[in-house]
Each structure stands twice: as structure tokens, then as C-alpha cells.
């Protein structure tokens, strides 16, 4: 698993400590701590995991083990406009794969990657609960329904100023 090397500032370390404290530093609350930290930093780089591990008195390997187990947690920073393509069954049978391929082609990145400018990242989701609009694409908080490969260019253009 690749990760970006970063240097945490003291205020960021303090923030992580505050989050751990708010959950009583209880090992059973690790997943909640990780959710909060990902909300704060956007992702969970190794450095953040190490601070959590030390604070909550567990091994870094345990934290890493939990982070990598759950697909919701990511160790790579997302783009400014994260693009998620729903590949749940309902979207798949209505052509999500061709839409996904078009995004890959247009953005020249693979699933799980962020483009060089840090603007777009690409990921897959399993059912966002809007199967009536399949295939569904989300960019940040916005949902696009009934997306065809031909619409992809226009969607990307919405986010390039």
C-alpha cells in the first residue's frame, strides 16, 4: 500500500489527540476515531495512524490492520472533487462499467488514484441508494443520474473553471 510521506504540524497532532480523548482512548472506539480523523484530514496517512496508535496505546500494526480492512478508509488523499462511480448491481446492469471506463480515459487515472493536479480522484461505490437513477455518479456531494459515457466530458467540465 503506497502512501504519501508527510510531516504533521503540532496543531494537527493536538487535533488527533483531542479526537482520541473524546472517545476516551478506548480501543473499542478505534473505528469511530478513524472516521473522525478521516473527516478532519481527508485521508489517513501512516503518520496520522502512528499518532493514533501511540495515543491509544496500541500497536501501529493494529491500526494499519483496521484501516486497510475497511474500504471506506483511504491512505491516499482524495482530489478536490472526488468522483465516485456507483458499481452496485443496479448500476452495473445499466452500464456503469462503460461510464467508469470513460472517466478513466478522460482523466487518465485508475480507480483509487488522484490526478497529478490533485483536482479529481476516482473511486467506486456499491449502491448509493438511488438505483432508480442508475447508472449513478457522484462528484463531491452532487449526484448525477442516468449517466451515459457521452455525458462524462460535460460532467468533468462542470468542475474545471
Amino acid at each position: 500500500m503506497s502512501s504519501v510521506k508527510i510531516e504533521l504540524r503540532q496543531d494537527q497532532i493536538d487535533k488527533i489527540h483531542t479526537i482520541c480523548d473524546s472517545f476516551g482512548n478506548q480501543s473499542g472506539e478505534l473505528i469511530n476515531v478513524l472516521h473522525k480523523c478521516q473527516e478532519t484530514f481527508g485521508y489517513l496517512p501512516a503518520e496520522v495512524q502512528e499518532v493514533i496508535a501511540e495515543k491509544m496505546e496500541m500497536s501501529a500494526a493494529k491500526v494499519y490492520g483496521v484501516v486497510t480492512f475497511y474500504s471506506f478508509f483511504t491512505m491516499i488523499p482524495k482530489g478536490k472533487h472526488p468522483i465516485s462511480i456507483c458499481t452496485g448491481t443496479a448500476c452495473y446492469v445499466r452500464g456503469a462499467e462503460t461510464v467508469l471506463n470513460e472517466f478513466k480515459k478522460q482523466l487518465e487515472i485508475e480507480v483509487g488514484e488522484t490526478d497529478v493536479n490533485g483536482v479529481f480522484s476516482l473511486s467506486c461505490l456499491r449502491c448509493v441508494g438511488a438505483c432508480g437513477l442508475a447508472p449513478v455518479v457522484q462528484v463531491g456531494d452532487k449526484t448525477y443520474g442516468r449517466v451515459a459515457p457521452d455525458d462524462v466530458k460535460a460532467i468533468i467540465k462542470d468542475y474545471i473553471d
Partner: protein
Amino acid sequence: MSKYSMHLLVCGGTGCKSQESDIIAEKLKNELLKQGLEETVQVIMTGCFGFCEKGPILKVMPDNTFYTQVKPEDAEEIVEEHVIKGRRVERLLYTDPETEAHVEDSKHMGFYKKQLRIALRNCGVIDPEIIDEYIARDGYSALGEVLANQTPEETIELMKASGLRGRGGAGFPAGLKWDFARKNEADQKYVVCNADEGDPGAFMDRSILEGDPHSVLEAMAIVGRCIGADMGYIYIRAEYPLAIARLKTAIGQARKYGLLGKDILGSDFNFDVDLKYGAGAFVCGEETALIHSMEGERGEPSLKPPFPAESGYMGKPTNVNNVETLANVPVIILKGAEWFSSIGTDTSKGTKVFALAGKINNVGLIEVPMGTTLREVIFEIGGGIKDGKKFKAVQTGGPSGGCLTEKHLDMPISYENLVANGSMMGSGGMIVLDEDDCMVSIAKFYLEFTVEESCGKCAPCRIGNKRLLELLERICEGKGEESDLVRLRNLGEVIKDTSLCGLGQSSPNPVLSTMDNFYDEYLAHVVDKKCPSGVCTDLLEYFIVEENCIGCTACARACPVGCISGERKEPHLINPDTCIKCGACMEKCKFDAVILK
């Protein structure tokens, strides 16, 4: 509902909300304010109506008018015409696809006629963010009844007699499960609601939580009282932000009303509910994995026994039930076991919620009595196959289930019937497939999912499914042999028999059932190297349609291997033996003459 003479119910489910239904509600409120009608007409954001395909939905009460595909800019006209002048806005009414007539009233829509809404009773009816609306529809009276007039044993007996079975997949009788948890003595017990809903393409539980969160809270308290627990947790996916927000609101309101917390309704019963978040792992829907995840660990299943009812969360007796199972509980208590068991079949009582999706006209959420046939569900409620295509199969049970075909259409839906025909009830996903779908690809899709989601703890599932997937990939690439089909089946059986948890034990089902029902299609892939539905691109060939080709030579010049021949202004021809399928010709041709076939 007293002072208002009219209600505008706007769907606030995920599907409609992502199409700006919240803006519609805002605009309606503004219009009403402008007209001085805010005291007589109320706008309510409800949960999902089930008819997501034609969202955003707006229903007007008391006249039952059902508007579909409403846009924010329609708000003004709806208020002017319908609210003030009492004239329906024709163009927004649902059009019956068969008669092509406008249907004025939801009671006359084919979609609703055969439905019986028990678990979904309040979805699309009440504002899920206002506890008083739930209470006005008998909410929390079942809890009151249980606390005031029943012993826990009596309530458990009532549940047993009702015949309610788990809606999360396995179909275990709910009353029996509560009884086990009750009989295990401990200083602390827990009630857990499984809201992980991992089946991709299913959204039943999410809709219940979004549309009627209090029904689940009330039921959890009832379970708590029955088994002797004072704490409940809802394990919910972090990917469900709307459901989480509504649950938090509901929990806050219930606490304020003294319906959660200490000495509930003046009794000596204490019960509280909190949320635990999942983080995107299908296997965490399995109850032992879910409990490990709640404890902050990797969500790996463990061997049963011990069952959660003996040793669950924090090693204490824990009762795990699915969202939909719980949503049925309060109604059963109020209307009685006899009423509930009069609905459904001999062994499958009550109703089942299904998320209808795929190649079907009315994608959405439906609830039907057990014993309804697949034909009724797909063709009457679901409105048949999209674009007039031919029905091919329906997958139930998600990645753990199997496909059912034409010959199963008249089978009444029940736990037993589905299993006997190679599928299962599962949590209620129902994916409809048409003639354009390749069954080998569908099996491959589900297997990709299981391989990705296998926790890796045991070898048959971790390695076996990977091998199964490789075989399927080879077949879809045209590199498969007939002997691979035997290998698929044998390996699938071994994985089923030797995997540790339900994920591995059911993962080969989509492969095995598509092989049972569509063996010809598998044969076509391995023997003729053809994909009859034209889905597997590696098995398709680029081909120039003579009538469309004007002989512009653009394709021939673009072809990197020079396999396109033809004179200028004459139809061109692709040599399939040397074509490397790069697709350049198709991209260049401006006359749609190059096709894949």
C-alpha cells in the same frame, strides 16, 4: 394533522433528494407563504414512496394525487392550480404505460395495487424528523402495551406465534432468537440492529431508516425489554449519511419524550440506543463479523457456536436483528399474532420488502405479501421489462443468491421456494435482467464483488473464489475450454462446503445457478467463442456494415495493422483474423458503419 386542510408530501428519500426534492419543498413553502396559505396547507418531507424511477415524487393529501418527475420550477403551478383552484396539473400526473391515460390517484396505480405495506407503513406518509407524526400513527403504543400489560415471556410467545422470521437473510424465527437471548443469564446484554445492508443494489433498510426511524427504535426497546437488555446499538454504514442524520434526530427526540432513557413511560425499564459505524466491508453484515467491528477490530467472522445470543458484543449475550425484521415488530404487537400469521404462506409469514432494480420499468422499493409470484412483482408492480425487451432472469439474494428464470415466474415467493430453486431470499435485492445481459458476465460481476470482499481468514474463500474468478475471466476472454465448466462446478461445491462463514458458503451460488439455468450460454463462450448477448467484448468482432459504409477510407488509414481493405467509395471490409480489436476504426468512422458483433 388538525389545523391543515391539505398536505403536500414531498419525497425526501435518497433517490428524490439527489434530484433536488428538498428545493421543491422549499419552493412550495415559499409559494404558500406568498399566497398566505401557510396556515392551511402543510409541506412535509417524507421517506421514500418506493416509486423512485419516476422521482421526484409529490403526493397531495387528502385527494391522493400522485405527481411524478416534479421539478423545482413546477412549484408555482402546483400551488396556483392545484392548491388554489383545485385543478390537478395534468402533465405531472403519472401516465399508465398501457392505457396511456393519466392516473389521478395513487390507489389506481398498478405499482401500488398489489402491495401491502407493513414494514414500510410510514414511509412516504410521515415526516421522519418529527416524532409526533410517528406517535399520531400509533407510534410507541406497542412499547407502551408491552411495558404496561405484558410480561417479557408473553411478548416472546406472541412473536413466536406470529411466525415473523429474520429479514436479513437467514430467515431465523425472531421470537425464538429473543427467547435464547433471554434465557442466557448475564449482568449485561445488548440489542443490535444490523443496518449494514451490504448487498450492492439494495436499499430496503436504508429507506426504512430514512423514512421511519422511530419504528426501529421502538422495536429495539421492545427487544431490550424481552431479553433483559438496557442498551442497544445500530450498526450502520458510514455511506448512509441521510439515514444516520435521521436516526440521530430520532434518538434525540425519543430521549426527550422519555421513550428512551431511564424509567421509560413510568415503568422501571431503562433502555438507550447509540450508533456504531461500519466502514465499507460487506462481510461486516455477518453477525459475528459485525460484532468484532463494533468492538473496533477488523470485521472478520468467527466460528459459531458460540452464537451472539450466548456471547456477543463485549462477550455478553447479544440479540442481532435486521432493520426490516424490527420494523415489523410494533405492528405485530398492536394487531396481534393472528393477524400477522394470516398473511403469507404456511412457513413464510407477513410481507417482504424488495428493492426492484435493473432492466425493469418501475425501479423502486416494494412490499408484497409472501406468496406473491415473481410474475406479479416483475410484470404488474414492476411494470415489465424496460424498452419492451424480453425478460431473461431475475437475481435474488444478491451476491449470495442465484438467478430465477421464465419457468420460475409463477412460483410463490417464500424462503423455502427460493432455496429449492437455487436462489435465496437474502435481504431483498431483486435485479431484473433482459435479453441483452450475458449471464456469464453477471456471475463474474458478483464474483468480483465477493473476491474483493472476502476477509481472507479462510483459504477456500480467499483462494478458491479467486480461482473461480480467474476461470470466469478466461471464459469471457474466449480462452475457456469445456473442461473449465466442470472445474467451475467442482470448485464451487468445495468452496460452499468448506468456507467458514456465510460469505464463502454462498459465494459460488451466482455461478452455479447461472450454469444450471443457462448452460448453453456458457457453452457458447467456451466452444463457439461467442457471447450470445454481445457483452463480452473480447468475443466480439469489429465488422463493417456494407449499407452504411461510403468508402471514405478513414478507418483503413487509422488501422494500425492494416487489416481493412476496400477501394475508395466502395464498402470496406475488416479481416477478423488479423484485427487486434483496437477500436480505432470505430472511433474514426463518422457513418456508424463499424459495429461490434
